[in-house]
């Protein structure tokens, strides 16, 4: 999952980036001012945007409106010190999906981020079931017919993303975009490597064919 954090308090931005990377293994991009943040939100596709309101250059709500007028449906979590009910209502009415006031609890923050991403892919249950495969997105555990499968973080993220978008064809470029941050050197064969590793681990006998390859289009997991 790839997250954009627009927050002018640099240390706070780095702290929440760190917790998202360490805890969830997300790819995180940082922006410290409004104009740059809006540009990044427009030019990349993110799974979640964390937005401060009082930003230099451009107010957070203006960024939000600009994103929403572009028909961008990326979930947005407003993270701000302005916590009066009218502020919260204004924020949600401008098109944000959640509102968290500073100071906040890191655990709660991460849980909200996960819920927002899950919801944005139309999944209510944190356990995603694909035939015999069950992915527990909270404990980040994968089981096949009840047997625990040990995956590397990148393998897990690839599988989770494909599972969240079950029923849709996901291209290699999309996978790259959603699993790696801005600074990553992008080689699409990285994805091929992870997919083949995944297939070996979850279905060594090639009985279920969970991850299908559609030549020239991408990968498909049947829901």
């Amino acid at each position, binding site marked *: 999952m790839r997250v954009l954090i627009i927050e*002018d*308090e*640099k*240390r*706070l931005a780095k*702290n*929440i980036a*760190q*917790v998202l990377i*360490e*805890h969830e293994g997300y790819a995180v991009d940082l922006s410290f001012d409004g104009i740059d943040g809006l540009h990044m939100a427009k030019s990349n596709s993110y799974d979640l945007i964390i937005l401060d309101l*009082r930003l*230099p*250059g451009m107010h957070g709500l203006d960024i939000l409106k600009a994103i929403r007028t572009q028909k961008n449906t990326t979930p947005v979590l407003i993270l701000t*010190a*302005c*916590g*009066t009910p009218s502020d919260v209502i204004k924020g949600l009415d401008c098109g944000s999906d959640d509102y968290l*006031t*500073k*100071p*906040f*609890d*890191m*655990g709660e923050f991460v849980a909200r981020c996960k819920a927002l991403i899950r919801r944005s892919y139309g999944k209510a249950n944190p356990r995603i079931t694909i035939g015999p495969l069950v992915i527990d997105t909270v404990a980040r555990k994968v089981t096949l017919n009840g047997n625990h499968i040990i995956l590397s973080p990148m393998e897990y993220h690839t599988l989770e993303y494909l599972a969240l978008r079950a029923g849709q064809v996901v291209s290699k470029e999309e996978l790259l975009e959603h699993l790696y941050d801005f600074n990553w050197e992008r080689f699409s064969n990285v994805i091929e490597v992870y997919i083949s590793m995944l297939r070996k681990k979850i279905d060594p006998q090639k009985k279920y064919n969970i991850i299908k390859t559609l030549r020239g289009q991408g990968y498909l997991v049947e829901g």
Partner: protein
Amino acid sequence: MKLRSLKARIGVCIAILMLIVVAILSGIAYHEFKEGLWKNMDLTLQSDLQQVKGLLFSAQGSEMEKKQELTDLLNAQATFGSFDYQIWFEDHISGQTEMYITSDLYHAYTQHSASAPVLEKSVLLDLNYNNQSYRAIWARYAMPHNRSIPGQTVNIALAISSHYAFHEVGEFVRVLLIAGAIVIWAAWGLTQQILRWGLKPLHSLAEQMSHITESDLATINPSCPDVHLELVSFVTSWKDMLARLAKAMEEQKRFISDAAHELKTPIALMKSTLQLAQIKKRDTEYYENTIADALEDVDRLHNLVNQLLELSRIESPTSITRREWIHLNNVIEDVIEYHKPLLDEKGFVLKPDLCPADLYGSREQLQCLFNNLIDNAIKYAPPKTTISIAMKTDDNSVTIIVHDEGGNIPQEECGLLFERFYRISKARDRNSGGSGLGLAIAKEIVLQHGGQIHVESNHTIGTRFIVSLPKNTRNQETRNAD
């Protein structure tokens, strides 16, 4: 103070006024009425006297007939009530008084008298007899002299009961009292009604005022449809006051919300830093960095709280700041000395150009003012440049210019710079450590000293903060007194 009803007071005043007017008018009316009645009785008595006299002194008729006639005459007159008479002779020689006319005397008189009797005296008087009051006339006639009847006098007294007149007067007084009471009562009632009508808009305002709370102060628009001309200025100033209150409340709210925002930010930072360290086991270096970061946040909070307190202290009208004559150049030198280490660390060159100037003011506040200005220059000017402090003085004021080579403040933001928690958009980098209150405090101090502060900034001249402070103590005293 004892509360008294305006209605009652005005009512009582009007009632007393009406009472006096009614009393005077009634007094005049009573007097005239009584006078008229008495005059009427007197006229009756006088005309009766003439008749009695005519009858008495006429030559015709016997004594009995005359008595009868007299009785008839007087009975006919007794319309006002009982009527009585008495006629008697006085013999000056014997000193005897004869009641009633004796036949002899009468004849002697009527036969021999050559001329008419002369009226000696006539008196009108009020009598009280047997608990009855009378109006009476007493006439004394001197009989003409002749031989057979030596100097004699005839007295005629007629009395008419004044009971009826008194009754009439009593009736009149009753009518006057009732009318007076009605007039006073009507005046009281009318006054109350007029006052009630006059005060109605005030009641409606009071009713509206009682519903105003702090939250709807800004939205309230009191309506007074039929306000009287005399109350227009009151209603207008009341509305103005509401608007001013709403504005002040709004400013206060904004300040509190800004302050809360600024306080929450370092707390959020500290909390996130500490939680991050707690999430999993880290190495010693990580913990050391975390502690350093958290301490930095605590310092920032401390600084912010201090500045908030400073601001409220300066602003408070009851603040007691000791004012004295101070050498302003010495104050600025002290401040420069204090900043020396930081200036050296960042590679700034500070060029002071001071001249001696004395000023009446608060040493502590003026130190704070220049501290904040130099702090500001250090924060926002590019490192390793020159900061200069120039000072000019004339008879009335001292001007101090703090100049740095920053010059990145947009023209339209120059005025906003002194607003609380305002940071110009480009420089709004929290890592500079500013609380956003320094310049607001500076402005407040300058205002407290009766001076002015403004800023000029562009790329060619850099940024210049110009402070001018008056030397005149009287201005400051009056400002303090305000």
